[in-house]
């Protein structure tokens, strides 16, 4: 049909150990704004990477037709040349270059091999005016706010006369006004016949701007429906509703005295103190409990955890008490000493020194605690051996380089590292992300063991079944604020999702 710009049929993409997309089909009509939603890990990013050429033809199964012809790009350049432009969350602008230089990057107007600056400026001004952006082409990109930077990124795609524009979470860093500007631009482009795929967590936005919406869940396409026929609740149900296939070991959790308390806790984005990442949070974590923390990406959960750990030094305000004592951590080593530990979200970047051995990583956070000045080989070997046994870390030996372990086992090494510090409060940030089912179960068992021994565990997670299955209390964060609190096994996924996305 002439009307269908892009048709993807039976797309399947596998990674070692996991199927990211399973038989997904997508049909995008020319000139429409097609919304794509799903939870974290549903497969949206993977699908987009296939469409944008990052996963080139041959790395996935299925066929894609673009403008009626087979779409088989060898890379991003190919996809772009065919008319598909993708705007990712991480911008690809050159911060030290000007708007004009960025807009025409790689395609600067030339005269005899020399850049024709005059034409560059006038052409840029033309493009910007067409879109309705009043920005001086001579400004350096880094001097623009993030919102404008995103709009410049979009202008790049428009300049290239792309047929299909794919936007991945475009409003995550935008203010209200900037979002309106973006929507106006999108509608304008629609009038000019440009098609758009719009990916977002923010349901109100997707419902507002899209003509059609496709929902992905667990790598499968659940449904594609006309946006005007969908309600908020229906959308949530499609995104989230699934049978609880995983089994979650649950232990009786007692709620004893609070071991960590924060009040009026605010974290600013930077020293200008204009934007708050965490807004006036009041929270108490008790000995022997697993406190779940739900929320969308960007809700502020990680920032909250990092700030408690001493990482956003100078940008926090509020009161923090550990075991009733007033504390203020200027750096992680101080937090560790008081018994507060944080297992970072990105275990490769923040949790492990990949070139070091398993044993060296396990003792990394306890060097001062156990050894003081000199490292006793025997003690290190024993500690490592005990951790490997306790957490059933699958490794050829403790001297194996940790980079060679699987994701799940790497995660266990990180857990082992932190537990060696004998924490009172353990904050886990997406601890089972990228971990296979078997290892997940073992991690849950470890967590249960900990709380039975009196440790307080805070579990930040985007996997709602996990939170419901294990935690005895779940709090929900939304745009930096604590939005709701639920009792663990008496709440449904829809309730949590609704709270995480609400704007009241």
């Amino acid at each position, binding site marked *: 049909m002439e009307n269908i710009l892009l048709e993807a049929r039976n797309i399947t993409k596998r990674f070692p150990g996991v199927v990211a997309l399973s038989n997904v089909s997508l049909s995008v009509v020319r000139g429409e704004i097609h919304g794509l939603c799903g939870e974290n890990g549903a497969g949206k990013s993977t699908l987009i990477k296939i469409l944008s050429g990052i996963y080139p033809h041959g790395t996935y199964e299925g066929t894609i037709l673009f403008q009626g012809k087979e779409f088989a790009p060898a890379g991003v350049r190919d996809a772009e040349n065919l008319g598909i432009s993708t705007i990712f969350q991480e911008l690809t602008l050159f911060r030290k270059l000007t708007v004009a230089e960025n807009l025409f990057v790689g395609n600067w107007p030339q005269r005899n091999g020399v850049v024709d600056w005059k034409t560059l400026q006038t052409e840029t001004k033309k493009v910007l005016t067409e879109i309705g952006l009043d920005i001086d082409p001579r400004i350096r990109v880094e001097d623009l706010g993030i919102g404008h930077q995103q709009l410049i990124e979009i202008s790049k795609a428009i300049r290239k006369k792309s047929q299909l524009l794919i936007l991945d979470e475009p409003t995550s860093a935008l203010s209200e006004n900037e979002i309106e500007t973006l929507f106006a631009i999108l509608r304008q482009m629609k009038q000019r016949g440009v098609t758009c795929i719009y990916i977002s967590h923010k349901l109100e936005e997707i419902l507002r701007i899209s003509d059609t919406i496709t929902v992905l869940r667990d790598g499968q396409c659940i449904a594609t429906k006309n946006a005007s026929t969908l309600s908020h609740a229906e959308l949530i149900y499609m995104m989230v509703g699934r049978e609880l296939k995983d089994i979650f070991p649950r232990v009786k959790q007692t709620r004893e005295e609070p071991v960590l308390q924060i009040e009026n806790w605010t974290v600013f984005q930077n020293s200008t103190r204009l934007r708050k990442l965490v807004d006036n949070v009041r929270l108490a974590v008790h000995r022997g409990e697993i406190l779940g923390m739900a929320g969308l990406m960007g809700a502020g959960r990680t920032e909250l955890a990092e700030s408690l750990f001493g990482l956003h030094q100078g940008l926090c305000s509020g009161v923090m008490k550990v075991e009733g004592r007033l504390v203020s951590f200027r750096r992680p080593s101080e937090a560790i000493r008081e018994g507060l530990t944080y297992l970072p979200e990105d275990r490769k970047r923040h949790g492990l020194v990949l070139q070091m051995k398993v044993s060296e990583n396990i003792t990394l956070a306890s060097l001062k605690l156990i050894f003081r000045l000199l490292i006793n080989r025997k003690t290190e070997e024993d500690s490592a051996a005990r951790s490997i046994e306790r957490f059933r870390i699958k490794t050829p030996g403790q001297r194996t*380089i940790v980079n060679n372990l699987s994701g799940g086992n790497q995660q266990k090494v990180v857990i082992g590292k932190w537990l060696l510090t004998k924490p009172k409060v353990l904050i886990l940030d997406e601890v089972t992300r990228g971990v296979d089912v078997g290892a997940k179960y073992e991690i849950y068992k470890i967590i249960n063991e900990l709380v039975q021994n009196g440790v307080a565990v805070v579990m930040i997670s985007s996997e709602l079944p996990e939170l419901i299955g294990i935690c005895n209390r779940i709090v929900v964060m939304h745009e930096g604020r604590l939005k709701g609190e639920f009792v663990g096994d008496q709440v449904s996924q829809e309730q949590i999702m609704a709270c995480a996305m609400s704007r009241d």
Partner: protein
Amino acid sequence: MVASRSRRRDIRSYTMILALLVIWLVMFILTKGTFVTPRNLSNLFVQMSIVGVLATGMVLIIISGNIDLSVGSLLGMLGGFAAILQVAYHLDTVTTLLLTLLLGVVVGVIQGSIISYLRVPAFIVTLGGLLAFRGVLLAVTNGRTISPVNESFRIIGQEYLPKMPGLILACAIAALLLVLELIRLQKNHRADESGNARSIVPFGKALLFPAVVIAFTLVMNNYKGVPIPVIIMLGTIAVFSFIANRSVFGRSIYAIGGNKDAAVYSGIRVNPIIFGIFILQGALCAVGGAILTARLNAGTVSAGQNLELDVIAAAVIGGASLAGGVGTVPGAMLGALVMASLNNGLSILDVESFWQYILKGIILVAAVYIDVINTDKK
């Protein structure tokens, strides 16, 4: 896939040892045997001692992800300082050494704090140091050579360990090494289930080091004895090897260089450690400067010029990566020995000095290239 630090180190060590043996063989043939005479070997090790001393500290700096371009100028400045103290102020050797060491530490404190606390990149700070310290040296010496130094001071650079005591010491060290190795093997053997075919090789290795120690001493004694600068170098190797492998400080350095974020998240305090490394480097430059001044019997204006390049090359040839997180002290020694052997051999052959530069450059690039290939293969 990231190759294991120890696997890479092993391959690199074997390659470098092989390269060393090849160079020695070639030199032996070309110089008709002069190269391996005790006299020449003694000179060889003395010639490498200053680079060796400085390389032990440089390796730690490189592992931490930084660089120090000022070592040559600092060494020259401190050496000149030591000369002035003796010639102009008639201070005795011990006082001179202490004051020189103190100055080295002070400079280390200054550079270290600018780098870690003021967050100016190490490349820039030490580049500034390279220029500034040379300038200070020119200023305080008025452009003149300062000499002669105390007789007792000269011992540091020119004298040798008396032969008998030297041999006894060597035997004692050899025995100690043997005992330690045997204990370690016992422990591993117990933990290791399969071990029959393997047990021969480790025993061979255990005998290797003590044998080398005794052989080395015997060769040195064949000339005049073990040179004092070499003893100093071996001492710094031992100390810094120990620091790198067995101290919390050393482990933290590897962590910071390997993944700074992970180190911070694990509660390692980066600033004091970087600060500390540069202080150590300052002290080492003092030691090196003293050795050089003692050898030349003078503080010269050009002392240590371009030395930083040799020191960095030694560390890198020995396995350190400028990206940080990798490198060993013994490796740096090997690198220094490779380059010193080259220098020494070419001198004997009376080859024009520009060949030394060209060959050093080639070996440096070749050594890192070998490393790159090995990493890619895994």
